[in-house]
Structure formats: structure tokens, C-alpha cells
């Protein structure tokens, strides 16, 4: 719940100027602007937004009050995502396709019985050699991330496959990122619209788009700091810790941070996007 006390705190908290990002995962306004500039340059769907002069936050540049990505489609409601019980086994494969479409196979290879079962119970005891995993060292290691340059290769977002976004269920979202002075982190906001650009009720968006693990807990409806329209937002109190952990995971062999603060928002979208997995605001492929 966004209380009066919070708003007062936000007003009174000082604008941070000293960079503490490597220690706390939080960023200064300057770092926010720098990371925002990179986001906008790499991903043209994102843009800086300005507001009426009276509504501007003075600690942010006039033309760079917050970041917005307009009318992002939702691929599907989380509730229609497949579940493991939709799967069936095909030999030693777990198959999520519908069995009717399979090319017919010789009867001795796959009994009809197998096909009909919607779900075969999977027994952990079947896996008798899980210990082997530790013995194998040839597994590629994520530590070898050596392709920051790939950022340059990221193609602008191509248009979404239209047939997947059915007309009758077309739901679009304005996704924005503001700077939260109190927690010194970016803050993520979502506002939904139907195909006629009529705003969706936050309760509707909450129930259909927000991962149930987060709905009503980490994600709540609060007035957007600029438009004052109630939007869904992810509470920022843990963002610093999460971002620090994210960066720490990507240290090089010498223990130095692999990424600089400019890619902060690109990484941020990767983790914060998981609250609304179907809303396509994370366009990064190579991080």
C-alpha cells in the first residue's frame, strides 16, 4: 500500500550522487540516465518520456523523466500456459505436443496405451545415475560470457507473430520505468489496454498477466508517479539486492564486474519481466 508516509519519504529522500552500484546494486540518477540512454539506443521500442513542466521531477533532465515502451502485446494470459499435466511420454521423451499430430509409428515401438495416457507418472527412482552429473566436467560454463559485443548484434524487435495474438483477446500494455529516489533503483510499471485502447482494470491484468507467485504481493496497484493513473508496479525494496546478485554472477575470472552500469536497465528488464512473463518488454537475447 502506497501510504502518505511513503510519499513524504520519497519527497524528503536526497537525490543520490555517489555511485554505490557495485556495493549495493542501487544507482544514481546519472547512472539511471546513462543506462536509459543505452536501453533506448539498443531497443527502439523504448523511449524517454517527458511530462508537463509542472509535473517534472527536477532531479531528472526535462526530456528524460522516465522510460516508456508503448502498447506491448501480451502473448497469452499466464493462465492458459501449458502445464506438465498436458504432457505425455513418448518412449523416454516428455512430449508437450498433441499426440494426434504425431506421424504414426510402428506399433511395437509405441503402444496405443502410451498414447492415450494424458500423463504418465514420472518416478524419480527411475533416474538411477543422477550422481554422474557431478563427475562430468565438460559442461560448458556460463562464466565464459565473452560476448558483450553481441549487444551490438541485437536486432530491433521484429513484429510479433500476429496469429498468436488473437483479435478478441488482444491485450496491449504500456510498460514504463521510473527512477525511485527513495530506493535508488528503477521502478517498473504496467498499464493494460484492450484493442480499442480502453484501459484494462488493474484487477483484470493482475489476475491474467501477473505470475500468481507475485500478484498482490510484490506486485500491487499504485498511482504512477507521473500520470497518477493507478498502474501495476513491482515493489522496489529488493531491486538493489537482486541487481547486485545479478552483476556478481557475471564477474570475470579476476572477480571484476563483467558488465558496466550502462547495461543496468537491460539486465533489470530481464528479471523484472518475469512477473508478467507474457508481456514482451524484454527484447534482449544475448545477455
Amino acid at each position, binding site marked *: 500500500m502506497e501510504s502518505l508516509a511513503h510519499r513524504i519519504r520519497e519527497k524528503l529522500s536526497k537525490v543520490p550522487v555517489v555511485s554505490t552500484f557495485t556495493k549495493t546494486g542501487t544507482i544514481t540518477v546519472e547512472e539511471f540516465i546513462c543506462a536509459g540512454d543505452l536501453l533506448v539506443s539498443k531497443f527502439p521500442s523504448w523511449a524517454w518520456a517527458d511530462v508537463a513542466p509542472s509535473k517534472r521531477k527536477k532531479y531528472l533532465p526535462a526530456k528524460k523523466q522516465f522510460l516508456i515502451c508503448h502498447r506491448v502485446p501480451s*502473448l*497469452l494470459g499466464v493462465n492458459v*500456459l*501449458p*502445464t*506438465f499435466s498436458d504432457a505425455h511420454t*513418448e518412449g*523416454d*521423451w*516428455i*512430449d*508437450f*505436443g498433441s499426440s494426434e499430430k*504425431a*506421424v504414426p*509409428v510402428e506399433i511395437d515401438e509405441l503402444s496405443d496405451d502410451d498414447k492415450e495416457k494424458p500423463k504418465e507418472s*514420472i*518416478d*524419480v527412482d527411475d*533416474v538411477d*545415475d*543422477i550422481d*554422474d*552429473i*557431478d*563427475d*562430468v566436467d*565438460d*559442461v*560448458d*560454463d*556460463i562464466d*565464459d560470457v565473452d*560476448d558483450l559485443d*553481441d549487444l551490438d548484434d541485437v536486432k530491433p524487435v521484429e513484429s510479433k507473430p500476429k496469429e*498468436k495474438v488473437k483479435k478478441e483477446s488482444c491485450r496491449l500494455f504500456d510498460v514504463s520505468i521510473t527512477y525511485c529516489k527513495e530506493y535508488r533503483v528503477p521502478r517498473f510499471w504496467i498499464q493494460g489496454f484492450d484493442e480499442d485502447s480502453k484501459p484494462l482494470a488493474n484487477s483484470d491484468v493482475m489476475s491474467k498477466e501477473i505470475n500468481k*507467485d*507475485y500478484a498482490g504481493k*510484490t506486485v500491487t496497484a499504485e498511482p504512477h508517479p507521473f500520470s497518477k493513473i493507478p498502474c501495476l508496479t*513491482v515493489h522496489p525494496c*529488493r531491486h538493489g*539486492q*537482486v541487481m*547486485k*546478485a*545479478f552483476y556478481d*554472477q557475471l564477474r570475470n575470472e579476476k572477480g571484476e564486474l563483467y558488465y558496466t552500469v550502462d547495461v543496468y536497465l537491460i539486465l533489470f528488464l530481464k*528479471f*523484472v*519481466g*518475469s512477473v508478467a*512473463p*507474457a508481456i*514482451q518488454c*524484454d*527484447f*534482449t*537475447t*544475448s*545477455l
Partner: protein
Amino acid sequence: MSAAAFKTKPFEDRLEEARGVRERFPDRIPIIIEKDKRATELPELDRFKFLFPSHFFVVQLLYVLKERLHLPQTDAFYLFINDQAPTNSQTLQSLYDNNKNEDGFLYMKYSSQAAFGGEEEE
């Protein structure tokens, strides 16, 4: 058989198996999924060979796997192919076309980054 053991099978055997499964299920993508070895806090999947419809989005895959692993509510979950995390909106077909192994399988690893309150939480 584990994913690690599977990868030590002779290349020709794997090639043959991928060819066979692609022939039988032309609209599915054969994916070998295992845990990133550094993600010690995550459980292992009890199976590692998956067939997913080629039109599936990555987001659907993530969702299914999280469900299967009974991940704690506050955990986020990431997939990596050759150390790169695909976007939610890529289809498995495009992932397969661009990243499949020479043996015809698509190999993925999963890892977690505890979001919204992490390992460092006191």
C-alpha cells in the same frame, strides 16, 4: 541416464536419435534440458529429454519447467543456450534453427537468480 551421460553417447548415435525423433514428430523440437551446475539451490529435473511444439514461445517453456521444479515463490528462472538467455518471445523453432547442436538436438541449461529477495538476504 542423465543429460550429462546422454552427451557422452557417441555422436552418430545422437545424430541418429535426433533424426528419428524429428522424422516421427516433425512439428516438435527435441530439447535436452539440464541444470546449470552452479545453480546448486535448484532441484534437478527428473527427466531431461523434452519434445515441445515448435510454435511454443520460450515463455511457455519457462513456465512449464518452473512448475515442474516446484520453485519457491520468490525465485526467478532463466534458460541458457550456449551461455545466452533467449527472450521470452522467441519461438522454439527459431531457437532451434539458430542454436541446434550438430547432433540435431537443442541443448539448454536452467539456472536461477532469486528475484525479489535473494541469496544475500539476511
